[in-house]
């Protein structure tokens, strides 16, 4: 009955919207946004816990020095202005003067210096701040990051959820590595972001409310955000459809995405995931002396596996083409590389040339792994596709993620389906897969055992090149080589989609960081 009443209320508010929609849309203050997290939150402190689940509440609770617009241009946030010195070795942040933590304590450059220390000690993405040697605090509102070498990745690393400024007066009470398990990470968590924590109930919800002393005048627009924790994608889909949820992100099941696209009240969009950069790919272990150490075999596999089938049949058109290790939405993406359109003759010829002649109906056999049930169709498809060119593939299931992660980390596999994220600048999430000094260092390292001196050199240069155009050229060449040598056969993006109620949600977070960004400009119509 409650729901009937809700429907009635929605109908009348719809009438109100129709009546006023002639006027240009102005953000409205107030209201409670009901949104959703797809899995339980481990830790709300985004300075020590990365990942997309913590990213959403984390970016609301904690502010970062910069934010990015949808064109990948940095915008002021906690830093009013910032400058990078001529030699690229000093980055000066001029902080806003009115920023306060939710407990009323003013935010100062001390907190910035402290947060850099905490992130360096605890955050998994070491490359973000590795070149940062020290942070000077000449006055309360100036922080100077001293670098050992130019570090162009730093700007993106200072946005979204990657550089949460946490209060020193709360988290500075013990050893710096203990912040990982600090009691205030999940309870009474205090930041300087647009929303403050009301309640986190494990497995149930995270509730945030407007921080009235937020340093940007008049923001945020929403009074409250309820993040419900609903782990079942089918249940989430029904909740979007019947209006129980206003908005949600990271929906990736093609069947559900396509169903929701047909619902009139909803907008379903793949926009907003460029910086997170999730990619699906077929990893090939190039180490050892098996067939996969021969680049011709890897190319033959790419020609035999039809990525159109993966994109259109398995992903049902929800995923886009992605040919290199950099997400297609990134300014560094170079799609002008070999696309490996399916060609079985070429594949057979390459395998013959590599010295694996057809013996009966088979040349040799390989195994393929997968780490979670969602990608089993891809793996089964690869098996069927490679059978056509005489490669027998045995599918190896893993009981769960750790089992698979261990196999990957120890490079105990031939091929595997994998999903890896860019996490902002290529230095953070791309280099790790291809540089030779990161071979076999756990899951999502260079598990392919791939080593190419020119790639190492290019990536090293790109990590210190401050000129954007020169950097793009370096990454373009890198992507050419990767597409040519195929340590990984890149097939498609992971089809993350944001779903929101078109009539209710104004200005949803579809910039480059998805929901891992402050939603102080989102409003309810």
């Amino acid at each position: 009955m409650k729901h009937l009443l809700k429907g009635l209320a929605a109908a009348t508010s719809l009438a109100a919207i129709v009546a006023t929609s002639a006027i240009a849309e102005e953000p409205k203050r107030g209201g409670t946004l009901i949104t959703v997290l797809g899995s339980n939150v481990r830790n709300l402190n985004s300075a020590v816990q990365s990942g997309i689940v913590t990213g959403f509440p984390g970016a609301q609770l904690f502010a970062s020095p910069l934010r990015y617009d949808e064109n990948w241009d940095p915008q002021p946030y906690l830093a009013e202005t910032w400058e990078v010195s001529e030699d690229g070795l000093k980055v000066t942040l001029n902080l806003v003067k009115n920023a306060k933590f939710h407990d009323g304590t003013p935010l100062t450059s001390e907190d910035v210096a402290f947060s850099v220390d905490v992130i360096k000690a605890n955050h998994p993405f070491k490359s973000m701040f590795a070149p940062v040697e020290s942070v000077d605090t000449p006055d309360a509102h100036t922080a100077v990051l001293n670098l050992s070498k130019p570090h162009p990745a730093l700007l993106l690393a200072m946005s979204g959820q990657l550089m949460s400024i946490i209060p020193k007066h709360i988290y500075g009470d013990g050893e710096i590595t203990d912040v990982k398990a600090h009691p205030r990470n999940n309870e009474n968590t205090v930041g300087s972001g647009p929303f403050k924590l009301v309640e986190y109930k494990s497995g149930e919800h995270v509730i945030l409310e407007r921080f009235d002393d937020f340093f940007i005048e008049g923001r945020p627009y929403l009074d409250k955000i309820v993040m419900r924790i609903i782990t079942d994608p089918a249940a989430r889909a029904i909740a979007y459809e019947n209006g129980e949820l206003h908005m949600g992100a990271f929906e990736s099941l093609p069947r559900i995405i396509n169903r929701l696209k047909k619902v009139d009240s909803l907008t379903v969009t793949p926009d907003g995931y460029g910086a997170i950069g999730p990619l699906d790919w077929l990893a090939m272990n190039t180490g050892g002396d098996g067939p996969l150490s021969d680049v011709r075999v890897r190319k033959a596999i790419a020609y035999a596996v039809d990525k159109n089938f993966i994109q259109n049949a398995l992903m049902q058109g929800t995923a886009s083409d992605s040919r290199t290790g950099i997400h297609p939405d990134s300014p560094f993406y170079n799609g002008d590389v070999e696309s490996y359109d399916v060609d079985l003759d070429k594949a057979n010829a390459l395998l013959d040339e590599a010295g694996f002649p057809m013996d009966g109906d088979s040349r040799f056999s390989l195994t393929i792994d997968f780490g979670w049930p969602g990608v089993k169709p891809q793996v089964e498809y690869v098996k069927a596709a490679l059978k056509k060119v005489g490669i027998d593939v045995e599918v190896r299931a893993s009981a769960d993620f750790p089992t698979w992660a261990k196999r990957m980390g120890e490079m105990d596999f031939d091929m595997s389906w994998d999903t890896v994220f860019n996490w902002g600048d290529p230095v953070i999430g791309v280099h790790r897969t291809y540089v030779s000094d990161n071979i076999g260092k756990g899951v999502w390292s260079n598990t392919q055992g791939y080593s190419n001196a020119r790639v190492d050199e290019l990536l090293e240069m790109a990590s210190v090149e401050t000129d954007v155009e020169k950097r793009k050229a370096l990454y373009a060449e890198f992507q050419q080589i990767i597409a040519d040598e195929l340590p990984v056969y890149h097939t498609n993006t992971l089809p993350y989609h944001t779903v929101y109620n078109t009539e209710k949600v104004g200005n949803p977070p579809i910039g480059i960081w998805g929901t891992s960004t402050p939603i102080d400009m989102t409003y309810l119509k």
Partner: protein
Amino acid sequence: MNILRILVTRVFYAAVLLTAVLVLNFSLMHLAPGDVADTISQSMGGADQELLDQIRADYGLDQHFVVQLGRYIGNVLTFDLGFSFFYNQPVTQLILERLPATLLLVISAQLVALIVGVVLGVISAQKPNGIASHFVTFLALFGYSAPVFWTGILLLIAFSLQIQWFPVAGMRDVTIEGGFWVKAVDVAQHLVLPMITLASVFFALYSRLARAAMMEVLGSDYVRTAKAKGLRERTVVYKHALKNALSPVITLAGLQFSAVISGAVLVEAVFSWPGLGTLAFQSIIARDTPTILGILFFSALVVIVGNLLTDLALRLVDPRVGGKK
């Protein structure tokens, strides 16, 4: 005195059982390749070897198996279930927060399944070949053979999407303001679908058993005698026969209690019911050993208490049970 003796032996058995549960499961968890450091790294989008090693050292996962097991059992003996690796919270707190939701779901589903099952079983026993009886048989077979997650989604589509009577997920609507009763009604609304889903499986068992037991009792001499005395059909069925037909149903209900709890894992997952089932599921996936063991500890406790209550209930309906021999 009798009850006291039962309690003492029960507590002894319980202690043995709990130790076995903990040691076995700890060993099983340890045998599986990979550990919680991997899933923590997964939740963070990847971590380097250095951080993985640090996490393992922090949680003592780099120690020898025997040392880890010994330390864990030692803690349990001092009533300390430890710290969840994955959630960085005391396990006891994590579980106690979730236990009420699971108890509410499991007990209400069990009661509904029992009451509806027995009533329908009795009705169909009276006319074993009537239409009503066939209908009950059909319902029972359907409930028993349909997987709960499927039944759950089906009910969601019917009653949350097509006819919007019930909410989709969770246990409460946090936007609702109001006193105790308003909130109780809200929880009740959220409870209906998961409860029916869970009850549908067990209703099948109880109705079939009640039907069989009732038919047997209805054919016995004393029922014929009662009928011959001229008692009304209703009195015969509900006063004389039912009590005797009930004891096998109650015995089964007690035995099934652990099955209801495991059924709750799936139902909770479908309806995002914030109970132990969801926590168990997530902890197993995350390899969060202390939490899994804590949940097993508590579920074993609940089953033990459930069985004890079943015994007591049996004594109430059937004075022959536990009487002086």
